[in-house]
């Protein structure tokens, strides 16, 4: 598979299962291309041999049956289909048999960002995992959100993230590096930007980081950083809102506290109360030019205190 590794991290040893998944994919295609050739090769031959030029119509023969041939092309493909089913089965069996000794990490997919929560409560916007360890992702979307799908191409792993349900997938990353995470279930305007990374770290580095105060491995100690900033990053807010004044999906954050906004209910001040509503009940007073349903509610995701911290931080962003 080396030749295909033009795409970042597409290796056959990225996890414990990728080699067998690729092997199964390869075998399935070999069988099927061979099967296809049993149709196409005779067809090309007959088209040549029995074309009207070489085989005038007086010579045409009516052959309507041949029981043994017909049995052969029923039974042999059936058996081959079962072989392919078997290859599909073993891969899915490995993929879906959750190991019992795994670390669980929560994945929350919402419009249009991924958030990860570790057992000790730490939150990040990239998924950091230790090398050579079984990881189970417990994935869900907020109830008011839509369906997403979590895909790591390099790990050959994909599962939908459904609001109100929990789905799982597991892997054991064997190769250090950064791999792409993509959303594959169509989820709206920024579907194609709902990207993230999974970063495989050496075990000791991972454990050193997870118990530290830094937001990301090798990063500065963020215990002194405003909590609001961390919250904005880790909850994926800044994938739709810029810290400047440009509009991505939602309005930019620069000077957002205290400015006047036009809504369907008239002009109002974007004060603390307004912003709190905007976070917890986003469709209430939408600023003209933006549409309802774009921003998921953070009710139940952020606590009262966290909302206040965010607004505190935003008011420093003049």
């Amino acid at each position, binding site marked *: 598979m080396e030749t295909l590794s033009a795409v970042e991290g597409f290796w056959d040893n990225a996890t414990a299962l990728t080699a067998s998944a690729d092997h199964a994919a390869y075998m399935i295609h070999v069988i099927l291309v061979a099967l296809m050739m049993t149709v196409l090769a005779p067809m090309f031959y007959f088209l040549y041999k029995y074309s009207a030029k070489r085989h005038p119509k007086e010579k045409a023969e009516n052959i309507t049956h041949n029981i043994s041939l017909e049995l052969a092309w029923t039974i042999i493909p059936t058996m081959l289909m079962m072989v392919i089913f078997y290859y599909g089965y073993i891969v899915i*069996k490995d993929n*879906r*048999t*959750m*190991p*019992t000794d795994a670390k*669980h990490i929560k994945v929350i997919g919402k419009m249009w960002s991924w958030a990860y929560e570790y057992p000790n409560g730490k939150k990040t916007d990239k998924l950091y995992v230790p090398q050579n360890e079984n990881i*189970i992702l417990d994935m869900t979307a907020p109830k008011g959100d839509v369906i997403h799908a979590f895909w790591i191409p390099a790990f050959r792993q994909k599962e939908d993230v459904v609001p109100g349900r929990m789905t*799982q997938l597991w892997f054991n990353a064997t190769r250090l590096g950064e791999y792409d995470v993509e959303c594959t279930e169509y989820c709206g305007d920024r579907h194609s930007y709902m990207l993230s990374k999974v970063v495989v770290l050496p075990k000791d580095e991972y454990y050193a980081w997870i118990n530290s105060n830094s937001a990301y491995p090798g990063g500065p100690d963020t215990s002194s950083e405003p909590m609001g900033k961390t919250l904005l990053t880790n909850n994926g807010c800044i994938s739709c809102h810029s810290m400047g004044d440009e509009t991505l999906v939602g309005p930019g954050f620069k000077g957002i506290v205290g400015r006047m906004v036009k809504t369907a209910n008239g002009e109002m001040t974007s004060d603390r109360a307004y912003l709190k509503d905007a976070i917890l009940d986003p469709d209430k007073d939408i600023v003209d030019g933006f549409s309802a349903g774009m921003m998921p509610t953070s009710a139940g995701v952020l606590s009262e205190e966290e909302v206040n911290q965010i607004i505190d931080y935003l008011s420093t962003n003049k």
Partner: protein
Amino acid sequence: MDTKEFTEKDFQEQIIMYGKILALLLFLTGVTFLQPLFISQGLEGTLFLQLVLASIKGFLIVAYYMHLKTASDVIKGTVYFTVFILGVLFVIMGIDSNMDDSVLDMFQAVTASH
């Protein structure tokens, strides 16, 4: 058109037949609404008895009111086929509903922490 002549005798027979079926259906409707009073059962029992009653009524309606009994084989086949297909859809959906998030499910049984 039906080649047979519709005689006065046929007419009398059919009136009596429809009358009988109507009476039977009324009786079954009575049973439907009174069932919980005299065979008071749990949910399973009620549901089962109610669906059996509904099926009997359904059978009577289809067989006599909709005269399936005298319809052509094509029409009979159509009806059996529909019921069969609908049954299959119920069974498949049932399998998925039943297995989903359950220890009965094939590989999930291994998940301890679910």
